């Protein structure tokens, strides 16, 4: 846990330093007063100082024996479910522009329900169809929300 907090705080420090550098590329003041870089510059500076302070206090914290058993990243069966959600969402986003919402969501729903442990084919089929074609119909026809139609016409 402590190691995880140190890494996360380090990442936030890096983010603040990057924002500090980027804000210096913008003008901090102009003839009317503060420029576009003014607010982000001071924010990034304060953020970097806070991150350094947090790094020091976390580093000084006494080691907790329970920390060794605490895992930050998911593992075991829960870890597989976690990975399935992330990987399928990423795959869905990548292919949706080409395949369109309906086809991409049909495959996504079926794969996700299976990955979460469902094995009855008819439930998988109902979820896949309702969650893709059904949702598309409801949102585009009743709620006027535009959803992607892919290059292959779905």
């Amino acid at each position, binding site marked *: 846990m402590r190691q995880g*907090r140190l890494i*996360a705080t380090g990442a936030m420090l890096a983010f603040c330093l990057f924002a500090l550098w980027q804000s210096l590329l913008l003008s901090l003041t102009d003839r009317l*007063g*503060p420029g576009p870089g003014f607010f*982000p510059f001071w924010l990034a500076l304060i953020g970097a100082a806070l991150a350094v302070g947090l790094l020091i206090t976390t580093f000084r914290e006494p080691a907790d024996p329970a920390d060794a058993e605490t895992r930050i990243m998911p593992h075991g069966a829960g*870890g597989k479910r976690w990975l399935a959600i992330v990987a399928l*969402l990423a795959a869905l986003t990548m292919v949706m522009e080409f395949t369109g919402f309906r086809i991409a*969501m049909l495959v996504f729903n079926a794969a996700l329900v299976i990955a*979460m442990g469902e094995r009855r084919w008819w439930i998988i089929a109902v979820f896949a169809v309702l969650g893709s074609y059904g949702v598309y119909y409801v949102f585009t026809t009743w709620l006027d929300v*535009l959803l992607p139609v892919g290059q292959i016409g779905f």
Partner: protein
Amino acid sequence: MDSLGHLLQGFAAALSWYYLAYALAGCVLGTLIGVLPGLGPAAGTAILIPLTFNLDATGAIIMLSAIYYGAMYGGTITSVLINVPGEAASVVTCIDGHAMARQGRAGSALGIAAIGSFVGGVLATVALVVVAMPLATLALKFGPAEFFALMVAGLCLVVGLAGKNIVAALLMTVIGLLFAMIGLDPVRGAPRFTFGVEELYDGIGFVPVVMGLFGVAELLLAAEKRQARMIEAELKNWMPTRQEMRDCVGPIGRGTVVGFVLGLIPGVGAIVPTFMAYVIEKRVSKTPERFGKGAIEGVASAETANNAYANAAMVPLLALGIPSSPTIAVLMGAFIINGITPGPFLFQEQPALVWTVIASFFVGNALLLILNLPLVGLWAKLLKIPFSYMCTGVLIFCVVGAYGLKQSLFDVWVMLGFGIIGYLLRKLDFPIAPAILALILGPMMEKSLRTTLEISGGSFAIFLDRPVALALLTIPVIVIAFLLFKPRSLDKLRESDVD
């Protein structure tokens, strides 16, 4: 026209069939989402935003507000039946509510929770009607310096009450503010941190970020855990007995006062009033030993305070434009999506909208009572929905919501990215609420500060010349100084209270 006249006009609109239908749909969907373990009101409100894309602004806000209340009540059902709080505020309800369920009194626990929520919600809305307009009128005298100071004070109160580590909470606020800087500079229109990416010119979308941080992150956390087992409760007798009702009159009254007063303070969060109301009841009770073992007063006080808080939290949003919790920030996002800026000008520029929405709070609370008492058994059945179905359903809404607002797949990537970030931050115990509030307040804060400095010719001394701004800026200094240098004995005292 006075508040009462405006409110009556608001009722006339809120009781029209279509706004009534939106409120009903919001209450049903909110309760449904609140019942599903792992999804709190913030996640519920965020993932259901796409349903309101095509509604008019008043209808959209009525529906989202009803979702918010519904989700708050839905969380009670999981607290009582499976000892899993649907949201943080229901933690206290678990203590006696679940004990009651184990004794076969789940129906009474859920019934008194619905009645207490209704009374607390309605009385808090009455107080909102009385307080909101004078507060908004007062705030109309504020200039940019006062608004900047008000936003800083609001954010610092959220930071102060966000968690154990004040430095981590402050850092999260700054990170949220820095994310809010992405896009076009609100004063000069210059692009900032866009790196030539066209999608970033409009800034990071609030909807995909909250859907990621709440919806996706909560699903990722839930995917790791095993589902809790539900108690097979007898839910036919959902009305508490006369004696139980008599016992709860005092707790409901005190819970309303505690919930409303604390709801006015940005950053307090729903758990503080529920916990405080519970502790007060335990202290005033002649038989405090019953608390923790199924005392109905414990459920009544906590649930009343919870709903009174939820309604009172609308006061800073509507009158000052300050969201006091992540869920209220999501609602503020919904206002902004619909082209409305909450704050003191709202009562002048959009009186029809604001009073219809306020009237709908009364209607929504009544609908929740009518829905929840007889339908407790039906809601309880929803707890048996397997995680695989819930996860798939929620993710469909998240993808549609993130994409639908701007028809941008980039926003779906943003949602996924923030989902993973939210998961990690929660596991590492970094508070998310300050970052969400900072993200939505960031552009307004910057605009207020820069306008103030343009007026003063770049001098910060202007804050010393304006007593209201100075007083407001003193609040965060005191809060943060107290939290950084407070005596350690206070922490020990607080821990012993919770135990």
